């Protein structure tokens, strides 16, 4: 909230608003992929906040809901490609969870672009940058998240 001179509260000024994306990246592939994007000096939007997790299978759907509740405008989860999981099948189990979660959230009226899932390997720095660009662009088009946010 921004305090104006007259003391009135206004919503976040659309002009200054930048989307905030929380990204859960798996330690073995996607985090390394993001690292590669960095060392290769590939430019991508700075709107993401990375949280490193051991595996995409570690990501509990509650993490994503909590992120949205605490003011994230979008959430991205990225793991190893199927077959490449460090723990053999963590991402395959996660895939089922995420497929259902995405359907459920959309059914409940949350824009599907706010919660996104993808696979990025350790050698795909370019792909990581492209994904982030796409996610940020889509969330920017939606505007600030106001649905699950807890108003204190």
């Amino acid at each position, binding site marked *: 909230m921004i305090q104006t001179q007259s003391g009135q509260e206004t919503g976040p000024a659309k002009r200054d608003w930048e989307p905030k994306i929380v990204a859960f990246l798996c330690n073995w592939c996607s985090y390394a992929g993001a690292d590669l994007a960095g060392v290769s000096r590939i430019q991508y939007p700075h709107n993401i906040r990375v949280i490193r997790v051991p595996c995409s299978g570690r990501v509990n*759907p*509650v993490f994503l*809901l*909590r992120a949205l*509740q605490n003011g994230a405008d979008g959430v*991205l989860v990225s793991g190893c490609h*199927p*077959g490449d999981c460090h723990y053999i*099948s963590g991402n*395959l*189990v996660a*895939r*089922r*969870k*995420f*497929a*259902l*979660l*995405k*359907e*459920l*959230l*959309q*059914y*409940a*009226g*949350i*824009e599907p672009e706010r919660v*996104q*899932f*993808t*696979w990025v390997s350790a050698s795909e720095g370019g*792909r990581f940058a*492209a*994904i982030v*660009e*796409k*996610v940020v662009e889509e969330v920017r088009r939606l505007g600030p998240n106001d*649905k*699950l*946010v*807890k*108003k204190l």
Partner: protein
Amino acid sequence: MSASHEIETRLRETAEKLLREKRVDLFLGYEKASLPFRTTPLFLTSPEEVKRLAWNPFCTTNLAVYLPRLFKPPADAREAKTAPPPPTVGLVLKGCDTRSVVALIQERRVPREKLMLVGVACPGMVDWRKAERALREHEPLGAGEDAQGNIHVVVEDGTELTLRREEIVADACLECRSPTPSIHDALLGTPVEGKDPEAARQQTAAFEAKPLSARWAHLQETFSRCIRCNACRQACPVCSCCKECLLDQTRPRWVGAGTDISDVTIYHLVRAFHMAGRCTDCGACARACPMGIDTRLLARKVNQEVEDLYGYRPGEALDAKPPLADFAADDSQDFLTEP
């Protein structure tokens, strides 16, 4: 004589035999309650008491909810030494309750060999809220079933009214696909055909046809009534699954405990998600809700999605693996973001 009266007689005989021959230590059934349209759960341990057992169109409670507590594993080695051996339990099961028991057996929370399942083919149970609504200003004093399966009610001035059964059975019963227990040790009553799943799908489709914002607004309006009493979770036979429920954890507190609309929404979303591949659609949550929230709105969608994506229907087969405990190399991944 009504069909349920016949079943009641046979049920008492079966329970008496099981208890007298000591094939079960405990028999779970229903007893007439003090209010019309209601029954109360009954825990029987001696054959002399079987006349308290009742079977009528108001036996709504899903008795499977008591099973995990009866077979609770010992907390530690010391408790394991002193704990009495698990009981053998007989219980009355409708189609939906059977599905819940199957889900519990699959998750190894209840041992099949300790159960004596007395299945009853269920023609649909009365939702007392619907029945009282149908009576309008009348005060019911007593209710029973007539030979056609309809419900006759005696009201305050002594007159008798008849309510058509289809109009007052619970919503879950109207969508029930397997009202006759598939797994049982004894079966009472004439098998009942399952309902066409198309009706439930149409309801989901109708909700989905609304725009995103209207769906959100509808849920917010619904959830704003929620008082977070957790009755839906407690009434659910397959929920309360974890050693410590995520919703009860305080460090960290994942979901706020109050009635903040954001916390309430997350509570319901998490509950719907946790029931994916496990919800047997018995309607216990909707029945338990004191605020009349349609908890099945989200559950129904998740169930259909599980069936469409993974070809799985909860509680139908003992040897099936729950979909979220499993995976396949070729699972659909159309939902992924591609650059």
